[in-house]
């Protein structure tokens, strides 16, 4: 266990050096979400009116969740990069297991999205976003987002290892992220949707997580949640979903890594 931690830490050091040395990646991962917050918050905010609430309050949980989904492509591409440059062989010939290699990879990507989330919080605050719950509850909301990010990073790692080539990883992760994000309550209140579409969106697991975050941030708007079976009392379900995602994807990714490296 100590060895697993030491190995993971040594390998994480490598990823952090990469991040520091490629500021363009850091910048694109920060500027993009920040731009989303500004554009969505201000533009959509003036177009979408919520009874008795501000759109930017509604938006923040959703846009954090979207940022966490970016872990899928980030991790997937990173894993494929390592697979294709021979480093995997090097690691495989060392007296370490596959697990720390994967832990370091996913952790570094999650760290990156945590940094973007901090930047987004600042911009969100600037355009008027305020949490309306106790600090523990707010912290719980961010914790849930972190769990979502970790789960998505493991999903990305698994996809990257199975698909292997960036040309395939890009469109596939896009196809995972897009419907998850837009067929959800992340950006739009679901009341206005036709009922069949609303049902789909409500059963989208991301909607559950976003609803839970909103509630924990104190940004939930009673009206927009009314009648939604799945998103009623969402916190325990969101916790279960995000933990289950990691619990399923992490072992799968480690196994896929072992297989990809031995192939």
């Amino acid at each position, binding site marked *: 266990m100590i060895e697993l931690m030491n190995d993971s830490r040594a390998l994480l050091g*490598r990823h952090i*050096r990469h991040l520091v*040395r490629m500021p363009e990646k850091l910048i694109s991962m920060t500027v993009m979400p920040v731009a989303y917050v500004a554009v969505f918050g201000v533009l959509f905010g003036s177009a979408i009116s919520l009874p008795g609430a501000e759109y930017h309050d509604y938006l923040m949980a959703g846009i954090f969740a979207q940022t966490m989904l970016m872990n899928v492509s980030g991790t997937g591409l990173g894993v494929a990069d390592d697979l294709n440059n*021979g480093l995997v062989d090097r690691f*495989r*010939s*060392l007296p370490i297991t596959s697990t720390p290699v994967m832990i370091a990879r996913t952790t570094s990507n999650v760290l990156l999205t945590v940094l973007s989330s901090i930047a987004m919080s600042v911009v969100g605050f600037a355009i008027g976003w305020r949490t309306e719950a106790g600090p523990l509850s707010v912290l719980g909301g961010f914790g849930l987002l972190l769990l979502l990010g970790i789960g998505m990073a493991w999903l990305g790692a698994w996809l990257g290892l199975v698909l292997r080539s960036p040309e395939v990883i890009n469109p596939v992760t896009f196809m995972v992220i897009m419907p998850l994000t837009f067929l959800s309550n992340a950006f739009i209140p679901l009341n206005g949707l036709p009922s069949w579409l609303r049902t789909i969106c409500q059963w989208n697991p991301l909607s559950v997580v976003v609803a839970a975050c909103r509630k924990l941030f104190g940004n939930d708007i009673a009206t927009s949640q009314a009648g939604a079976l799945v998103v009623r009392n969402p916190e325990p379900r969101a916790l279960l979903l995000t933990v289950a995602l990691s619990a399923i994807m992490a072992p799968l990714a480690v196994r896929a890594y072992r297989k990809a490296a031995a192939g």
Partner: protein
Amino acid sequence: MDNVIQAEGLRKNYGDRLAVRSVDLSVPGGSVLGVLGPNGAGKTTLVRMLATLLDVDGGHAEVAGYDVTRHPRKVRERIGLTGQYAAVDSRLTARENLRLIGRLHHLDRFAAERRGEELLRRFDLLDAADRYVGTYSGGMRRRVDLAASLIGEPMVLFLDEPTTGLDPASRQVLWDSITEQVEAGTSVLLTTQYLEEADRLADRVVVIDEGSVAAEGKPAELKSRVGGERLRVVVRERSELPGAISALAPIAPEEPDVDTATGEVSIELRNGVESLAQAAEALRGAGVEPDEFGLYRPSLDDVFLSLIGDRTVTEQSALGKART
């Protein structure tokens, strides 16, 4: 000394295709085994199985005293691997690369640092140690890679085509480092397409073709298998060829080899200088004034080509040497 690599009936298949059919090999401690073969012969697959990177489909192998399937971890603690392309992180400096590998060998921070510095000095990389490896030349990268595989002070070193694609000067530098390492007591398994490389570095050579061992022995033994020293004569005028053949035939133990296109006659020399003098005498008697007249020792190329034959004509050009 005991064998540090011992493989029996080693087999690997990819679907229906047998990449390695049934390979037996042994490497005594402190020696260098050269594994020769054309592209796709199964050399890399063999190395990857022995280095625990690939699952073994049949047979078994022990490396550094441990079974590769049952105790891969023990094996990994005792081996170093340098692959066909430099497996180092191009976005880290050489110093950082070596430190990282040291940490992953579970050296503590100071030991990892010390070992890294030692290897940087030895491989003449100190000046460039803080540059990203991505900015290095091919030869330098290969040196970092070799240094990385030596961090754990391996008992057995696997070198999979270590100098493929390098210029002659870099190749020389790498050869010297390998020789130095062998002198320090490391056993080496080296795959190569360059016969010169095997000749230069290997104590024993195994020729692999289509996943099986086609020949095995010391380089000298393999060479003597295709015949001993030969005399090679090239005539100036095509018309002198019959004269040359009939002059040399009595000296040769077997029919002379004749290449009418190049005007070349070659015979085996059984009695060294004695036969050489006889041949010169005979040619003068026949009034043949040769363009070339010289001794010729078979190289591993000849061994290789006599074993693998014309089937691999395309690979032949990759060997960088044409048959004389």
